[in-house]
């Protein structure tokens, strides 16, 4: 059930008034939202509901055991002392399920290739598993809860219903943002109020998210797909496709995140901002503070810092950073492209760290104008570094990646063969719309600044959005890119 589908519109039109009516009755409202969330998920594939239930049961039990009620029976107190064992159980089960469904075939094929290199020919043992939608997102969300309880950062949730809803809350179940327990659980445990203010501002977020998806991302997808499915596109075509993909994936994923926020807000909940103008980042580190914030902060808090972070010396720090980025890449999927994408970003961040003292010196010596210029140069450079990285991410396989890199870097042909005739206008128009909205967003600090505009201007914006949606929307029901992760 895609957010950009009639089916979801009908589903939400049914859930919203019921949730509004039950807003003050927490338990009944949560029961409704939990059933709705499971129905939402079952529309993808009901067979994988069992995996959500396993994650929910394991982390609920882990939380209760790590933070038992007081006074607790003696056996529970004894068990609760084995904190590392309890946390390890949650990690093993959650990551085991994720690893099995997401990576088994990849590593089995890799092992077979490795053995073949050693002269031993074996058939790769592929299970041909279907990837359960959203598994990477809800597994990380559920896991972060157990870790937070283990660290004493949040108290264990006593109510299984509330916890189950925390894991399965439908606006962010299949593609995030990966929420933290400290932020979402208290909201789920409290009464909400569905107000006109929340509805209108939620609708605005949904509307803009929808435009980003069906008007910008899906039209850009046509340009990108034409090049990436072409056998031998020219350097110019690859270059345009890479820029187009940078915008496509941003519009696709941030559009989804906007819609998730808007849907949650209509229901009376606030979920986190997942993108904060990433193309205005002046260096790679800043980029990761602005892009897929819920994942990058998850990786920082639960991987990078436990691996040593900045505290354990120069080399340990570099290793932690590289490993975090590699695992972040692999989180997206089992493929060499994602692995290389992670390695690439790890190396870019390491390079930035290496150059940091030099850059700090330059920044200190320059005046305000020089600093502004430096920032602009940084934005341009970061954008291009990130765009280059998308080539690893988007390539179908290693062969295609090498061919495209060869075409881009060696061939140097200036023709645009491989591009659809309307590719240029679509990419330029999308870039113009994005730039305009991002500048406004930068000035307002968020999309909500629209409410400061005069009524007539807002009316024009709404009309433009509606006509843009009607005339240029792609209604073929393209799924969101991040659903596959």
């Amino acid at each position, binding site marked *: 059930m895609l957010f950009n589908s009639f089916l979801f519109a009908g589903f939400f039109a049914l859930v919203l008034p019921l949730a509004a009516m039950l807003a003050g009755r927490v338990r009944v409202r949560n029961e409704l939202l939990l059933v709705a969330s499971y129905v939402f998920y079952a529309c993808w594939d009901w067979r994988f509901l069992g995996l959500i239930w396993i994650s929910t049961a394991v982390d609920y039990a882990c939380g209760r055991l790590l933070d038992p009620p007081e006074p607790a029976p003696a056996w529970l107190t004894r068990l609760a002392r084995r904190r590392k064992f309890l946390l390890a159980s949650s990690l093993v089960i959650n990551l085991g399920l994720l690893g099995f469904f997401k990576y088994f075939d990849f590593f089995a094929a890799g092992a077979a290739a490795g053995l073949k290199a050693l002269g031993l020919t074996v058939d790769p043992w592929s299970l041909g598993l279907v990837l359960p939608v959203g598994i990477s997102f809800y597994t990380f969300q559920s896991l972060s809860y157990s870790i937070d309880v283990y660290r004493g950062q949040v108290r264990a949730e006593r109510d299984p219903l509330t916890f189950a809803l925390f894991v399965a809350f439908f606006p962010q179940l299949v593609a995030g943002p990966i929420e933290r327990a400290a932020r979402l659980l208290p909201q789920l445990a409290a009464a909400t109020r569905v107000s006109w*203010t929340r509805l209108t501002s939620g609708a605005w977020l949904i509307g803009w998210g929808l435009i980003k998806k069906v008007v910008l991302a899906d039209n850009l997808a046509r340009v990108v797909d034409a090049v990436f499915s072409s056998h031998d596109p020219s350097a110019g075509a690859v270059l345009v496709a890479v820029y187009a993909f940078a915008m496509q994936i941003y519009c696709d994923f941030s559009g989804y995140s906007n819609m998730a926020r808007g849907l949650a807000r209509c229901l009376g909940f606030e979920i986190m901002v997942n993108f904060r103008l990433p193309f205005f980042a002046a260096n790679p580190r800043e980029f990761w503070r602005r892009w897929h914030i819920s994942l990058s902060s998850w990786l920082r808090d639960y991987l990078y810092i436990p691996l040593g972070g900045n505290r354990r010396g120069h080399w340990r720090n570099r290793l932690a950073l590289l490993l975090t980025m590699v695992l972040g890449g692999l989180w997206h999927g089992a493929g060499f492209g994602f692995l290389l994408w992670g390695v690439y970003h790890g190396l870019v961040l390491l390079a930035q760290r290496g150059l940091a003292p030099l850059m700090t010196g330059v920044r200190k010596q320059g005046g305000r104008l020089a600093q502004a210029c430096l920032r602009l140069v940084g934005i341009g450079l970061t954008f291009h570094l990130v765009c280059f990285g998308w080539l690893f991410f988007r390539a179908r396989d290693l062969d295609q990646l090498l061919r495209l890199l060869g075409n881009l870097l060696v061939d140097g042909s200036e023709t645009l063969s491989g591009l659809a005739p309307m590719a240029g206008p679509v990419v330029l128009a999308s870039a113009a719309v994005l730039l305009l909205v991002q500048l406004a967003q930068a000035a307002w600090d968020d999309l909500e600044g629209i409410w400061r505009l005069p009524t007539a201007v807002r009316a024009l914006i709404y009309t433009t959005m509606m006509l843009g949606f009607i*005339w240029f929307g792609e209604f073929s029901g393209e799924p969101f890119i991040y659903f596959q992760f």
Partner: protein
Amino acid sequence: MSRSSTSNSDLARAGGPPRALLLALVLLGAVELGFRLADPREMIAYELGEQEYHAVKLWAERIGSPELAVIGSSRAREAIDAPALAERLGARLGRRVSVGNFACAGGTAEESQAVLDHLLRQPVRPAQVVYGVTLRQLWGQGLEFSRAAIFWRLADWWRAYDAYVGRVDASLPTVLRGGLERISAAFAYRRRVRQVLAEWLLGLPRRPTPLAGQATEWQQRVPDLSLLGERIDDRRVAWYVGRLLRGGRYPLDPDKVEALRRTLRAARGGGVELVVVELPLAAILLRHLPAGVVEQAMDQIAAVCAQEGVRFVRLTELGQRFEDADFLDQSHLNRRGAGRLSMALADRVLVPRMATSR
């Protein structure tokens, strides 16, 4: 944890009366009015491919059918030279006859049925229908509804949902969008907006519309292109036929035969005179098709036509022999071939029928 930058004052502003939204709806209403006042002939986008189906749907709804409508696949679309046919019929019958080519790329039996059903439920319906067929109409393994659904209403979808459990679920959004197109002209003509933009930006001419009785794009662009010009060789045709074969056999689907039967019944029930016409195929294609499959398909079509009391015109009745120079490629006639077929069809089949039916 990420902060939310939404300030309370911004949100409070969101809570006021929705003046901007109401104003936007008024503006949208003005745009809708403008689109409704525009000439639908100028507003319906026609492009080869799936867009043909959307164009046929809108044309029938907003303009209506001509006196003679052609249905079928792209083979039928290219086999009829609509302007030449209209002129010949006009000259022979002594009155103006409007001809529209409503055949669509791919057009299988169930898709042609959906087209005819759609034409028949409009206020302005065709008096005569020419249904051009080849064995391709019956090709397949099971009915496929994604394009037929473009013409459906909700009740049609519901019936299909009942009859073909699990096979039409994905078509519901198409049906709902079709419903929206009936309500809103701004939505219905959205493809033309894109087309105008592309024409303007890329300096392209407007594409011809066979629905309006114009020659098709291929007929206009490459009127004399023949097999030799297109380099249609045995390898290419073998590859083409290979894609259609299933286990070495050319599948003729009994469900498609039934779809053909329903089409003929619909025409009869709707009081429309329909004639089924066998279309020619290039010799190079016939060489690569499994032996006897064309005759087998034509026999099945002939049997259905006989049972339903519909005239089936075999190629032999038209007194024409089609050669390589008449074909654009292995399965489509070029304009020369289309002209010959259209004249023969007019003289031997349509004029006698139309002279007596008016």
